[in-house]
């Protein structure tokens, strides 16, 4: 097999298999960048995987005061689920518990979208009759009285059904430290791409999973083919000198944004070359029968 090499790092000829998701973007603003970030981080906490978190969410980027509707510092947040009803529920709960509660925050739509999701339109009931609706420039906003003044919250935000979840890269290397450093570089590079998030801790997953298990009722279990401790016992995908594997999972509003993010990620991982201990870059798939989106690394890297 004539694998492609990038600065000595092997790019395995395979593809990342990804799934359609529904997604939305909201803009959170606050009196300072720090507080906008606190609200955004809280809202996107415990949102690594739809398997048990209900949603996948993350911070897309920081917004300067001249980019937001109220001229205050802000943060753009992306939220993804498998269907629109779940997205609506997750949005309401997360904004209601984490943004409404955060001092000085305000919340705006961040996406036009094909359909609308309720934002302030459901939070307004917290106002117990004292809420006020304001139409500014054709967009409806709710002013909800709270203990530090008012929560200003746009009535709706947009929903896209063209979102894609599960774009991924697997980083294989000779030392744990090398793989972690390379993965961090990749996450940083992906952060620069518009319309994507890396929902896992620091953007990195160390416990990639396969579908199913030997145990009844366990829907996902450890990806043994990529566990370095099991090389001798299972049909391993790892060469003997690979000590650790980490995965970067990417969710995006469009499949183009995922491709762009994977491109940025691959080049960031290979930046230091094979000398820094990275041996392979590969991707996870299920044989191509489950997800409609296939991102072939060979095409992505070009």
């Amino acid at each position, binding site marked *: 097999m004539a694998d492609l090499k990038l600065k000595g790092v092997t790019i395995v000829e395979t593809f990342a298999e990804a799934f359609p998701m529904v997604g939305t973007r909201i803009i959170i*603003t606050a009196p300072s960048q720090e507080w906008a970030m606190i609200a955004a981080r809280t809202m996107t906490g415990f949102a690594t995987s739809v398997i048990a978190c209900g949603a996948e969410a993350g911070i897309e980027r920081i917004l300067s005061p001249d980019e937001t*509707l*109220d*001229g*205050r510092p802000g943060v753009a947040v992306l939220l993804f689920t498998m269907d629109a009803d779940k997205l609506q529920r997750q949005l309401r709960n997360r904004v209601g518990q984490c943004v409404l509660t955060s001092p*000085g925050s*305000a919340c705006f739509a961040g996406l036009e979208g094909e359909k609308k999701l309720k934002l302030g339109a459901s939070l307004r009931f917290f106002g117990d009759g*004292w809420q*006020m*609706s*304001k*139409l*500014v*420039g054709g967009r409806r*906003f709710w*002013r909800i009285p709270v203990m*530090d*003044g*008012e929560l*200003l919250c746009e009535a709706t935000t947009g929903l896209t059904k063209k979102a894609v979840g599960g774009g991924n890269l697997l980083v294989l290397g000779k030392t744990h430290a090398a793989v972690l450093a390379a993965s961090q570089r990749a996450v940083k590079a992906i952060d620069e791409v518009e319309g994507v998030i890396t929902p896992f801790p620091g953007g990195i997953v160390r416990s990639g999973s396969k579908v199913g298990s030997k145990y009844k009722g366990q829907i996902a279990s450890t990806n043994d083919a990529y566990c370095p401790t099991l090389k001798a016992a299972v049909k391993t995908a790892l060469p003997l000198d690979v000590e650790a594997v980490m995965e970067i999972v990417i969710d995006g509003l469009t499949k183009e944004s995922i491709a762009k993010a994977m491109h940025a990620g691959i080049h960031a991982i290979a930046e230091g070359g094979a000398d820094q201990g990275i041996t392979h870059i590969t991707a996870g798939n299920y044989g191509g029968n489950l997800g409609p989106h296939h991102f072939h690394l060979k095409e992505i890297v070009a």
Partner: protein
Amino acid sequence: MSALSFELKGKPDQRLDLSPLVPERLKDLKAKDIEALTIGSTRVPLTVGDAFKLKGNDPSEIRFVGTDGRCDKIGAGLKDGTILVEGDVGAYLGAGMKRGKIEVKGNAGVLAGASMAGGSIAVSGDADERAGGILVGETMGMKGGLLAIGGNAGPMVGERMRRGLVIVEGDAGDYAGGRMIAGTILLKRKVGRGAGYGLRRGSMILVEEPKDLLPTFGDCGVMEFDYLRLLEHWLHEAGKNIKLGGRARRLMGDMSVLGKGEMLILA
């Protein structure tokens, strides 16, 4: 194509009803047919041709030149297009309009933008009483859109309005925002007596504190309003640089009615 323009020939001897001169009505008419439209308001017949000199041929863009305070109902019921007026206008400017844009370089008579539902009106000079107010036979005043008055507004500006934004750059007369149902009025200078009389919902944003506050408004003190920042930002995008800041004193009222309205006096 150039703007279809109507130049007033001389001082008319009766009030003119110019409500037929809107793009929707003129778009399929020839110049001759337009000149034959009747615009009189008395038993003495009067046509467009009698009162105006016509020029241009694009009815989506209408210009009035040399008009005076007897030219009523300009842009009344407007559904699209733009109307530019170089001169004063009479009563009912853009009354009941739904979309489109009206700009007046002069003063407006009574009931400018009364019961309008959308679009925008900008009057560079003063507007007489009940601007953005309520038309006879209607249940509500202004229902949407933007009414910007560059000069002073007469009494009862925004009377019974339901939605939309009225901006008064100069002073406003008595009973500003009287019986408002909802909506927003931004008053940049002095207001007369009885401001917010019968205010149910809606916001009156005041730059100066009224001299004579109704006793049926309750003080909430000064606090932060992100809404003001949002409004300032939107006004800026719409080409109006009005500094609102983020702090205001909030008065709730009118407690003699529903009392869910507010006066925000900029701090």
